[in-house]
Protein backbone atom coordinates (compact mmCIF):
# COMPACT_ATOMS: atom_id res chain seq x y z
CA UNK A 1 0.00 0.00 0.00
CA UNK A 2 1.24 3.46 -0.85
CA UNK A 3 1.81 6.30 1.55
CA UNK A 4 -0.10 8.67 -0.61
CA UNK A 5 -3.38 7.04 0.38
CA UNK A 6 -2.93 8.29 3.92
CA UNK A 7 -3.23 11.78 5.12
CA UNK A 8 -0.10 13.28 6.55
CA UNK A 9 -2.04 13.90 9.76
CA UNK A 10 -2.58 10.21 10.39
CA UNK A 11 1.02 9.47 9.65
CA UNK A 12 2.27 12.24 11.92
CA UNK A 13 -0.05 11.08 14.67
CA UNK A 14 1.21 7.52 14.44
CA UNK A 15 4.80 8.68 14.51
CA UNK A 16 4.27 10.83 17.58
CA UNK A 17 2.42 8.00 19.31
CA UNK A 18 5.15 5.51 18.45
CA UNK A 19 7.78 7.76 20.02
CA UNK A 20 5.67 8.19 23.14
CA UNK A 21 5.22 4.42 23.38
CA UNK A 22 8.93 3.92 22.85
CA UNK A 23 9.81 6.24 25.73
CA UNK A 24 7.24 4.60 28.03
CA UNK A 25 8.34 1.06 27.23
CA UNK A 26 12.05 1.75 27.48
CA UNK A 27 11.58 3.79 30.64
CA UNK A 28 9.55 1.07 32.32
CA UNK A 29 12.02 -1.68 31.42
CA UNK A 30 15.04 -0.19 33.23
CA UNK A 31 13.74 -0.46 36.82
CA UNK A 32 12.74 -4.06 36.09
CA UNK A 33 16.28 -4.84 34.95
CA UNK A 34 17.64 -3.23 38.11
CA UNK A 35 15.47 -5.26 40.52
CA UNK A 36 14.52 -8.50 38.70
CA UNK A 37 13.68 -10.53 41.81
CA UNK A 38 11.74 -7.71 43.35
CA UNK A 39 9.69 -7.36 40.16
CA UNK A 40 9.14 -11.14 40.08
CA UNK A 41 7.54 -10.93 43.52
CA UNK A 42 5.23 -8.18 42.30
CA UNK A 43 4.15 -10.36 39.35
CA UNK A 44 3.58 -13.30 41.70
CA UNK A 45 1.48 -11.05 43.93
CA UNK A 46 -0.93 -10.48 41.03
CA UNK A 47 -1.98 -14.14 41.49
CA UNK A 48 -2.93 -14.68 37.87
CA UNK A 49 -0.44 -17.34 36.81
CA UNK A 50 1.52 -19.93 38.82
CA UNK A 51 4.62 -18.57 40.62
CA UNK A 52 7.03 -20.49 38.35
CA UNK A 53 5.45 -18.96 35.26
CA UNK A 54 5.37 -15.56 36.94
CA UNK A 55 9.09 -15.83 37.41
CA UNK A 56 9.74 -16.44 33.72
CA UNK A 57 7.28 -13.72 32.76
CA UNK A 58 9.03 -11.26 35.08
CA UNK A 59 12.43 -12.19 33.69
CA UNK A 60 11.39 -11.88 30.07
CA UNK A 61 9.11 -8.86 30.22
CA UNK A 62 11.78 -6.13 30.53
CA UNK A 63 13.65 -7.56 27.52
CA UNK A 64 10.44 -7.55 25.48
CA UNK A 65 9.65 -4.01 26.59
CA UNK A 66 13.09 -2.73 25.71
CA UNK A 67 13.01 -4.48 22.32
CA UNK A 68 9.64 -2.92 21.57
CA UNK A 69 10.94 0.47 22.63
CA UNK A 70 14.02 0.16 20.43
CA UNK A 71 11.99 -0.95 17.42
CA UNK A 72 9.58 1.95 17.90
CA UNK A 73 12.17 4.62 18.51
CA UNK A 74 14.26 3.58 15.53
CA UNK A 75 11.15 3.38 13.38
CA UNK A 76 12.00 -0.12 12.27
CA UNK A 77 9.23 -2.70 11.91
CA UNK A 78 6.83 -0.39 13.72
CA UNK A 79 3.79 -2.45 12.83
CA UNK A 80 5.05 -5.57 14.57
CA UNK A 81 6.39 -3.58 17.53
CA UNK A 82 3.14 -1.69 18.07
CA UNK A 83 1.14 -4.92 17.85
CA UNK A 84 3.37 -6.45 20.51
CA UNK A 85 2.95 -3.31 22.60
CA UNK A 86 -0.82 -3.55 22.20
CA UNK A 87 -0.80 -7.20 23.28
CA UNK A 88 1.27 -6.38 26.37
CA UNK A 89 -0.92 -3.44 27.32
CA UNK A 90 -4.08 -5.54 26.92
CA UNK A 91 -2.56 -8.12 29.27
CA UNK A 92 -1.73 -5.36 31.79
CA UNK A 93 -5.29 -4.03 31.60
CA UNK A 94 -6.66 -7.52 32.23
CA UNK A 95 -4.27 -8.12 35.15
CA UNK A 96 -5.10 -4.81 36.82
CA UNK A 97 -8.85 -5.17 36.19
CA UNK A 98 -9.00 -8.68 37.66
CA UNK A 99 -7.20 -7.61 40.82
CA UNK A 100 -9.28 -4.45 41.19
CA UNK A 101 -12.36 -6.61 40.89
CA UNK A 102 -10.95 -8.88 43.59
CA UNK A 103 -10.65 -5.79 45.77
CA UNK A 104 -6.92 -6.22 46.23
CA UNK A 105 -4.55 -3.40 47.05
CA UNK A 106 -1.18 -4.25 45.52
CA UNK A 107 1.76 -2.59 43.82
CA UNK A 108 1.18 -2.15 40.10
CA UNK A 109 4.78 -2.99 39.22
CA UNK A 110 4.56 -0.57 36.30
CA UNK A 111 8.11 0.59 36.95
CA UNK A 112 9.52 -2.52 38.56
CA UNK A 113 9.16 -3.46 42.20
CA UNK A 114 8.90 -0.02 43.78
CA UNK A 115 5.87 1.60 42.36
CA UNK A 116 2.41 2.84 43.15
CA UNK A 117 -0.73 0.87 43.89
CA UNK A 118 -3.08 -0.37 41.22
CA UNK A 119 -6.20 1.71 40.68
CA UNK A 120 -8.32 3.48 38.14
CA UNK A 121 -5.48 5.86 37.21
CA UNK A 122 -3.23 2.93 36.28
CA UNK A 123 -6.07 1.34 34.33
CA UNK A 124 -6.79 4.55 32.39
CA UNK A 125 -3.11 5.02 31.60
CA UNK A 126 -2.86 1.48 30.27
CA UNK A 127 -6.02 1.96 28.20
CA UNK A 128 -4.68 5.22 26.74
CA UNK A 129 -1.36 3.62 25.89
CA UNK A 130 -3.21 0.64 24.43
CA UNK A 131 -5.24 2.97 22.24
CA UNK A 132 -2.02 4.66 21.12
CA UNK A 133 -0.50 1.29 20.26
CA UNK A 134 -3.66 0.33 18.36
CA UNK A 135 -3.66 3.51 16.28
CA UNK A 136 0.04 3.12 15.55
CA UNK A 137 -0.44 -0.51 14.53
CA UNK A 138 -3.32 0.32 12.18
CA UNK A 139 -1.43 3.14 10.48
CA UNK A 140 1.80 1.15 10.31
CA UNK A 141 0.10 -1.90 8.82
CA UNK A 142 -1.63 0.22 6.23
CA UNK A 143 1.62 2.02 5.48
CA UNK A 144 3.44 -1.23 4.94
CA UNK A 145 4.38 -4.01 7.32
CA UNK A 146 8.08 -3.23 7.37
CA UNK A 147 8.13 0.40 6.37
CA UNK A 148 10.97 2.31 7.99
CA UNK A 149 8.94 5.51 8.04
CA UNK A 150 11.57 7.53 9.74
CA UNK A 151 13.86 6.93 6.78
CA UNK A 152 11.59 7.27 3.83
CA UNK A 153 8.16 8.83 3.85
CA UNK A 154 7.82 7.90 0.21
CA UNK A 155 6.74 4.45 1.23
CA UNK A 156 9.69 2.34 0.30
CA UNK A 157 9.35 -1.08 1.85
CA UNK A 158 12.10 -2.52 3.99
CA UNK A 159 13.07 -5.90 2.53
CA UNK A 160 12.05 -8.85 4.72
CA UNK A 161 15.63 -9.95 5.44
CA UNK A 162 16.47 -6.41 6.50
CA UNK A 163 13.40 -6.32 8.76
CA UNK A 164 14.46 -9.60 10.32
CA UNK A 165 17.94 -8.23 10.82
CA UNK A 166 16.50 -5.10 12.45
CA UNK A 167 14.43 -7.18 14.88
CA UNK A 168 17.41 -9.41 15.70
CA UNK A 169 19.63 -6.36 16.26
CA UNK A 170 17.10 -4.77 18.64
CA UNK A 171 16.70 -8.05 20.56
CA UNK A 172 20.47 -8.39 20.83
CA UNK A 173 20.79 -4.78 21.98
CA UNK A 174 18.12 -5.24 24.65
CA UNK A 175 19.77 -8.45 25.89
CA UNK A 176 23.13 -6.71 26.20
CA UNK A 177 21.71 -3.59 27.85
CA UNK A 178 19.49 -5.62 30.18
CA UNK A 179 22.29 -7.97 31.21
CA UNK A 180 24.63 -5.07 31.96
CA UNK A 181 22.02 -3.16 33.98
CA UNK A 182 21.10 -6.28 35.96
CA UNK A 183 24.75 -7.09 36.65
CA UNK A 184 25.39 -3.57 37.92
CA UNK A 185 22.12 -3.32 39.81
CA UNK A 186 21.81 -2.55 43.49
CA UNK A 187 19.93 -5.83 44.00
CA UNK A 188 22.85 -7.94 42.83
CA UNK A 189 25.50 -5.80 44.51
CA UNK A 190 23.62 -5.81 47.81
CA UNK A 191 23.10 -9.55 47.80
CA UNK A 192 26.64 -10.20 46.68
CA UNK A 193 28.11 -7.76 49.18
CA UNK A 194 31.27 -8.81 50.95
CA UNK A 195 31.67 -8.29 54.64
CA UNK A 196 35.20 -7.90 55.85
CA UNK A 197 36.09 -8.74 59.40
CA UNK A 198 38.66 -6.33 60.71
CA UNK A 199 39.19 -8.29 63.89
CA UNK A 200 39.49 -12.06 63.45
CA UNK A 201 38.28 -13.05 66.92
CA UNK A 202 34.78 -11.93 67.73
CA UNK A 203 33.10 -11.76 71.08
CA UNK A 204 30.27 -14.26 71.62
CA UNK A 205 30.02 -17.87 72.55
CA UNK A 206 28.85 -19.79 69.51
CA UNK A 207 28.37 -19.69 65.79
CA UNK A 208 25.61 -17.89 64.02
CA UNK A 209 23.11 -20.71 63.90
Amino acid at each position, binding site marked *: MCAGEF*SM*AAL*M*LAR*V*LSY*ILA*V*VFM*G*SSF*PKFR*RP*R*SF*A*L*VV*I*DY*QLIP*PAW*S*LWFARGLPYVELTIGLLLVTGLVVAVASLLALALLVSFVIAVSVNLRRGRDL*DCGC*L*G*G*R*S*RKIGRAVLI*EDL*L*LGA*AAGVTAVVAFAWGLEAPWFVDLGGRILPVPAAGFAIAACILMSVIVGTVITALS*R*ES*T*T*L*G*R*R*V*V*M*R*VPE*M*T*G*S*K*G*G*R
Partner: protein
Amino acid sequence: MTLGLIGYLVLCLVVAVMAVLLLGTMREVALLSRPAPNVPPTEADDGPALGSMIPHLRFESDNGFGPIDTRGPERGENTVILFVSPLCEGCQDTVGVLNAALRQGIRVRPIILLSGSDRVCRSFLNLFPIDAPVKIDTDYSQTDQFSITNRPFGLLYDSTGKLVRKKLLVSPGDMEVFIDVESGAPGENIAVVG
Protein backbone atom coordinates in the same frame (compact mmCIF):
# COMPACT_ATOMS: atom_id res chain seq x y z
CA MET B 1 -14.94 23.82 9.10
CA THR B 2 -13.38 21.43 6.73
CA LEU B 3 -12.80 17.81 7.59
CA GLY B 4 -9.08 18.38 7.44
CA LEU B 5 -9.18 21.11 10.05
CA ILE B 6 -11.26 18.93 12.39
CA GLY B 7 -8.78 16.14 11.91
CA TYR B 8 -5.92 18.51 12.65
CA LEU B 9 -7.58 19.71 15.87
CA VAL B 10 -8.25 16.12 16.97
CA LEU B 11 -4.63 15.32 16.26
CA CYS B 12 -3.46 18.27 18.40
CA LEU B 13 -5.73 17.15 21.22
CA VAL B 14 -4.42 13.59 21.12
CA VAL B 15 -0.83 14.81 21.06
CA ALA B 16 -1.51 17.10 24.03
CA VAL B 17 -3.05 14.23 26.03
CA MET B 18 -0.14 11.97 25.19
CA ALA B 19 2.35 14.70 26.12
CA VAL B 20 0.72 15.00 29.54
CA LEU B 21 0.92 11.22 29.89
CA LEU B 22 4.58 11.31 28.92
CA LEU B 23 5.34 14.08 31.39
CA GLY B 24 3.53 12.14 34.11
CA THR B 25 5.59 9.05 33.36
CA MET B 26 8.82 11.06 33.30
CA ARG B 27 7.92 12.59 36.65
CA GLU B 28 7.29 9.15 38.09
CA VAL B 29 10.62 7.88 36.78
CA ALA B 30 12.35 10.91 38.29
CA LEU B 31 10.63 10.41 41.63
CA LEU B 32 11.58 6.76 41.73
CA SER B 33 15.17 7.52 40.81
CA ARG B 34 15.51 9.93 43.70
CA PRO B 35 17.10 8.51 46.86
CA ALA B 36 14.70 7.72 49.65
CA PRO B 37 13.97 10.78 51.76
CA ASN B 38 15.12 10.86 55.33
CA VAL B 39 12.36 9.11 57.17
CA PRO B 40 11.82 10.62 60.59
CA PRO B 41 13.03 8.25 63.27
CA THR B 42 10.21 6.17 64.55
CA GLU B 43 12.27 3.73 66.58
CA ALA B 44 11.22 5.48 69.75
CA ASP B 45 7.54 4.77 69.11
CA ASP B 46 7.76 1.45 67.34
CA GLY B 47 8.59 -1.85 68.96
CA PRO B 48 9.09 -2.79 72.60
CA ALA B 49 10.82 -0.47 75.04
CA LEU B 50 14.60 -0.62 75.32
CA GLY B 51 15.59 -2.78 78.25
CA SER B 52 12.56 -5.04 77.96
CA MET B 53 13.10 -8.79 77.82
CA ILE B 54 12.71 -10.88 74.69
CA PRO B 55 9.22 -12.45 74.46
CA HIS B 56 9.12 -16.20 74.72
CA LEU B 57 8.13 -17.47 71.27
CA ARG B 58 8.39 -20.96 69.86
CA PHE B 59 7.74 -21.83 66.24
CA GLU B 60 9.00 -23.93 63.34
CA SER B 61 11.07 -22.07 60.79
CA ASP B 62 9.77 -22.08 57.23
CA ASN B 63 13.10 -22.49 55.47
CA GLY B 64 14.42 -25.68 57.01
CA PHE B 65 16.27 -24.27 60.01
CA GLY B 66 14.18 -26.27 62.47
CA PRO B 67 12.42 -24.97 65.54
CA ILE B 68 13.00 -21.46 66.82
CA ASP B 69 12.80 -20.73 70.52
CA THR B 70 13.61 -17.17 71.51
CA ARG B 71 14.49 -18.34 75.01
CA GLY B 72 15.83 -21.71 73.95
CA PRO B 73 19.20 -23.38 74.51
CA GLU B 74 20.91 -20.94 72.16
CA ARG B 75 20.23 -18.17 74.61
CA GLY B 76 23.49 -16.80 75.83
CA GLU B 77 24.42 -15.14 72.58
CA ASN B 78 23.16 -11.96 71.04
CA THR B 79 19.97 -12.16 69.04
CA VAL B 80 18.89 -10.04 66.11
CA ILE B 81 15.21 -10.16 65.17
CA LEU B 82 14.50 -8.68 61.78
CA PHE B 83 10.96 -7.79 60.68
CA VAL B 84 10.62 -7.70 56.92
CA SER B 85 8.02 -7.73 54.19
CA PRO B 86 8.67 -9.59 50.91
CA LEU B 87 7.59 -6.76 48.61
CA CYS B 88 9.52 -4.01 50.36
CA GLU B 89 12.77 -3.26 48.54
CA GLY B 90 14.41 -1.88 51.67
CA CYS B 91 13.66 -5.20 53.36
CA GLN B 92 15.29 -7.11 50.51
CA ASP B 93 18.43 -4.97 50.80
CA THR B 94 18.50 -5.34 54.57
CA VAL B 95 18.19 -9.12 54.36
CA GLY B 96 21.03 -9.10 51.81
CA VAL B 97 23.32 -7.26 54.23
CA LEU B 98 22.46 -9.62 57.10
CA ASN B 99 22.96 -12.60 54.81
CA ALA B 100 26.39 -11.36 53.77
CA ALA B 101 27.38 -10.80 57.40
CA LEU B 102 26.21 -14.30 58.35
CA ARG B 103 28.13 -15.88 55.50
CA GLN B 104 31.23 -14.12 56.73
CA GLY B 105 30.73 -15.68 60.16
CA ILE B 106 29.30 -12.90 62.26
CA ARG B 107 28.39 -14.42 65.62
CA VAL B 108 24.78 -13.64 66.25
CA ARG B 109 21.55 -15.58 66.47
CA PRO B 110 19.32 -14.16 63.71
CA ILE B 111 15.57 -14.61 63.50
CA ILE B 112 13.60 -13.19 60.60
CA LEU B 113 9.86 -12.62 60.75
CA LEU B 114 8.49 -12.32 57.22
CA SER B 115 5.04 -10.74 57.01
CA GLY B 116 2.83 -11.01 53.95
CA SER B 117 0.77 -13.45 51.93
CA ASP B 118 1.96 -17.05 52.10
CA ARG B 119 2.39 -17.32 48.32
CA VAL B 120 4.59 -14.24 48.03
CA CYS B 121 6.56 -15.05 51.19
CA ARG B 122 7.43 -18.54 49.94
CA SER B 123 8.46 -17.11 46.58
CA PHE B 124 10.57 -14.58 48.46
CA LEU B 125 12.40 -17.41 50.23
CA ASN B 126 13.07 -19.07 46.85
CA LEU B 127 14.32 -15.87 45.25
CA PHE B 128 16.28 -14.57 48.24
CA PRO B 129 17.87 -17.57 49.99
CA ILE B 130 18.55 -16.57 53.58
CA ASP B 131 21.11 -18.19 55.88
CA ALA B 132 18.93 -17.68 58.93
CA PRO B 133 15.72 -19.12 60.30
CA VAL B 134 12.70 -17.40 58.80
CA LYS B 135 9.14 -17.54 60.09
CA ILE B 136 6.39 -16.61 57.67
CA ASP B 137 3.91 -14.54 59.63
CA THR B 138 0.84 -14.36 57.43
CA ASP B 139 -1.54 -13.24 60.17
CA TYR B 140 0.99 -10.92 61.88
CA SER B 141 0.49 -12.82 65.15
CA GLN B 142 4.22 -13.03 65.92
CA THR B 143 5.00 -9.53 64.69
CA ASP B 144 2.21 -8.05 66.78
CA GLN B 145 3.80 -9.46 69.93
CA PHE B 146 6.66 -7.03 69.33
CA SER B 147 4.37 -4.09 68.47
CA ILE B 148 6.18 -3.53 65.17
CA THR B 149 4.34 -1.50 62.53
CA ASN B 150 7.17 -0.41 60.21
CA ARG B 151 9.45 -2.61 58.15
CA PRO B 152 12.33 -3.33 57.82
CA PHE B 153 12.76 -3.08 61.56
CA GLY B 154 15.52 -4.61 63.65
CA LEU B 155 15.64 -5.55 67.34
CA LEU B 156 18.91 -6.45 69.00
CA TYR B 157 18.82 -8.40 72.24
CA ASP B 158 21.96 -9.00 74.27
CA SER B 159 23.04 -12.35 75.64
CA THR B 160 20.75 -11.99 78.66
CA GLY B 161 17.70 -11.42 76.45
CA LYS B 162 17.45 -7.69 77.10
CA LEU B 163 16.59 -5.32 74.25
CA VAL B 164 19.60 -3.08 73.72
CA ARG B 165 18.92 -1.60 70.31
CA LYS B 166 16.00 -1.11 67.94
CA LYS B 167 15.97 0.62 64.60
CA LEU B 168 13.95 1.26 61.49
CA LEU B 169 16.40 0.14 58.83
CA VAL B 170 15.72 2.59 56.03
CA SER B 171 18.78 1.72 53.95
CA PRO B 172 21.37 -1.08 53.71
CA GLY B 173 23.75 1.32 55.48
CA ASP B 174 21.42 1.39 58.47
CA MET B 175 21.66 -2.38 58.72
CA GLU B 176 25.44 -2.21 58.52
CA VAL B 177 25.49 0.25 61.39
CA PHE B 178 22.87 -1.71 63.29
CA ILE B 179 24.84 -4.95 63.34
CA ASP B 180 28.14 -3.15 63.87
CA VAL B 181 27.38 -2.30 67.47
CA GLU B 182 29.68 -1.57 70.36
CA SER B 183 31.63 -4.04 72.39
CA GLY B 184 29.80 -7.18 73.40
CA ALA B 185 27.16 -7.01 70.72
CA PRO B 186 27.08 -8.75 67.32
CA GLY B 187 28.84 -7.19 64.41
CA GLU B 188 31.59 -5.61 66.43
CA ASN B 189 34.38 -4.35 64.22
CA ILE B 190 32.97 -5.35 60.88
CA ALA B 191 32.89 -3.25 57.81
CA VAL B 192 30.82 -3.90 54.72
CA VAL B 193 32.40 -3.25 51.37
CA GLY B 194 31.56 -3.83 47.73
